[in-house]
């Protein structure tokens, strides 16, 4: 079977016209039909034009051969977003009885230069499906390599989630999330994956079982960087719809208090307290004082709890002026519900 991994090298070697290559002897290239008067004539490079002319020829004759496979490699190297080429490649692979492991290597070559290409990832998934659960560790390793270059690659995360659910490999996933968060605690994708793991992993017992330790984990991250949006949302997500549990977990409002006392990066701490107040939270004097001390002199005195919510919104309107309208709306909500 013709080598399918040649696309990586093609780009670097000098282009040998397909017309001169013996493996394509007898193929009549089919030019692109742009119609009688093209509105826009794209200035294609010679290698691109020739590759696609040959591709069109073999595609239209539905030739499912080793040289067709090679041609799809070349076509993918000049335009990896051409999904028709990928479709045809899959048809060729199935007809020829592909070596799926070799095909995985081919996709790794493409991924090196096109890690955000939809067609690549879909193709990789299609190949991995052929291999089944045996492919799990290789797929996890592949996405790990992608994350070394871009730890937030949305396609790679989508693939990794699919791998875990379809092929398995959950055992080390929570540790992997912890590792990524150690490297970058602001990586929202890693926080999302952590939530995915604790809620869906068959070896962890589910959200209720994991909540306690995860609250501590999130709060630790909050104190390291209180301005980090992700752990605050993660913390809230741990309670999901269980408002009573959220209200009664003293660690949550204690964490908010600690951030307020530091008097910097307190936006999410204040908004969390605002949410809690909205659900009937009764703050102690220490929290009230901490909020009051953040007020600038022109905001006047805070009194009852509704004044407290009012105060919080006023502070946030000044602290986060970009979202002044949002905080004004929160203020209106707070006063209309009291």
């Amino acid at each position, binding site marked *: 079977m013709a080598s399918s991994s040649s696309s990586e090298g093609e780009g670097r070697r000098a282009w040998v016209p397909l017309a001169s290559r013996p493996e394509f002897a007898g193929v009549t290239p089919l030019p*692109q039909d742009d*119609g009688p008067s093209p509105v*826009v004539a794209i200035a294609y490079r010679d290698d691109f034009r020739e590759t696609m002319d040959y591709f069109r020829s073999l595609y239209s004759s539905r030739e499912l051969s080793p040289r067709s496979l090679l041609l799809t490699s070349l076509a993918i190297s000049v335009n990896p977003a051409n999904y028709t080429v990928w479709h045809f490649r899959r048809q060729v692979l199935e007809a020829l009885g592909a070596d799926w492991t070799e095909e995985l290597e081919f996709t790794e070559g493409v991924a090196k230069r096109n890690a955000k290409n939809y067609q690549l990832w879909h193709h990789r998934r299609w190949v991995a499906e052929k291999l089944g659960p045996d492919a799990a560790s290789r797929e996890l390793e592949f996405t790990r390599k992608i994350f070394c270059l871009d730890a937030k690659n*949305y396609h790679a995360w989508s693939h990794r989630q699919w791998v875990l659910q379809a092929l398995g490999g959950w055992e080390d996933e929570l540790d992997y999330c912890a590792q990524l968060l150690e490297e970058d605690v602001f990586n929202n994708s890693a926080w*999302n994956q952590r939530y995915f793991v604790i809620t869906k992993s068959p070896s962890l017992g589910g959200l209720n079982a994991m909540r306690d330790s995860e609250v501590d984990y999130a709060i630790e991250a909050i104190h390291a960087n209180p301005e980090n949006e992700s752990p605050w*949302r993660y913390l809230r997500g741990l309670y999901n719809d269980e408002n009573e549990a959220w209200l009664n977990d003293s660690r949550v409002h204690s964490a908010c208090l600690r951030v307020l006392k530091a008097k910097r990066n307190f936006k999410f701490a204040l908004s969390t307290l605002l949410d809690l107040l909205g659900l009937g939270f009764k703050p102690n004097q220490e929290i009230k004082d901490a909020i009051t001390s953040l007020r600038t002199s022109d905001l006047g005195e805070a009194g009852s709890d509704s004044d407290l919510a009012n105060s919080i919104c006023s502070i946030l309107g000044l602290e986060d002026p970009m979202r002044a309208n949002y905080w004004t709306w929160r203020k209106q909500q707070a006063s209309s519900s009291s």
Partner: protein
Amino acid sequence: MGELAGDKHVKYILSVEKKKDNLLGKLDTVDSDEVVSWILQCQHESGGFGGNIGHDPHLLYTLSAVQVLALFDKLDVLDINKVTNYIRALQNEDGSFSGHIWGEVDTRFSYCAICCLAILKRLDSINVEKAVRYIVSCKTLDGGFGCTPGAESHAGQIFCCVGALAITGSLHHIDKDLLGWWLCERQVKSGGLNGRPEKLSDVCYSWWVLSSLIMIDRVHWIDKEKLIKFILDCQDTENGGISDRPDDAVDIFHTYFGVAGLSLLEYPGLKATDPAYALPVDVVNRIFFGRCST
């Protein structure tokens, strides 16, 4: 603040591509018959459309084809049944949609299918309830939506899910306050919008985030003036076109989303855009309420 260099952008657009949006009010600079004839040549025997002549059909391009035909008021050239059958065959048992026969599933395709069928007035040909249920299953812990259940909230996916829910009259499934807050938190210091926490701002999110905010009635939660300034700063005022962020190279994709974003912000001189259908409001009115003057 700078101004929108509308004429320069028109020149840039014409220099790049056939398909064009109408928002700059210059649709008549393009030959509609040529475009329509080319689009029909992109249609596959299955009824779906490919990205170009000879390309395999795909939901993405099927939606684009129908949107362009709607812009030119040429939907009547279509065999509606054929296109409908292509789309409905792509709905899966769980209500999700595949993008093509090879089975890739993503909430983007839910939006494409629903938007396209709504324009063709054939929404009843799919199982809307299941489609909605699938989209709702993609809701995340922060009130947003991802590409599949469990995936991270992403403004692009959120647009697709909110748009699909809006078109099917299912916005009540959304916690608008929670999502609205997540969306307005996408605005960063420069005034631009990002697509996820701690990512760089990009002009295209002016569309994804803004249209989502409008659909859930929360657009007043962002700082409009600062966003307008950001988009205008992304223009190439000499050669036309808009880039992802200031001083980067322009491309047709960001030119569209920058102009569309400004339209949503009611920038003077631009036509109003429907946030769910991503088409000018007068085109949407024409589709659903009959002939109106354009």
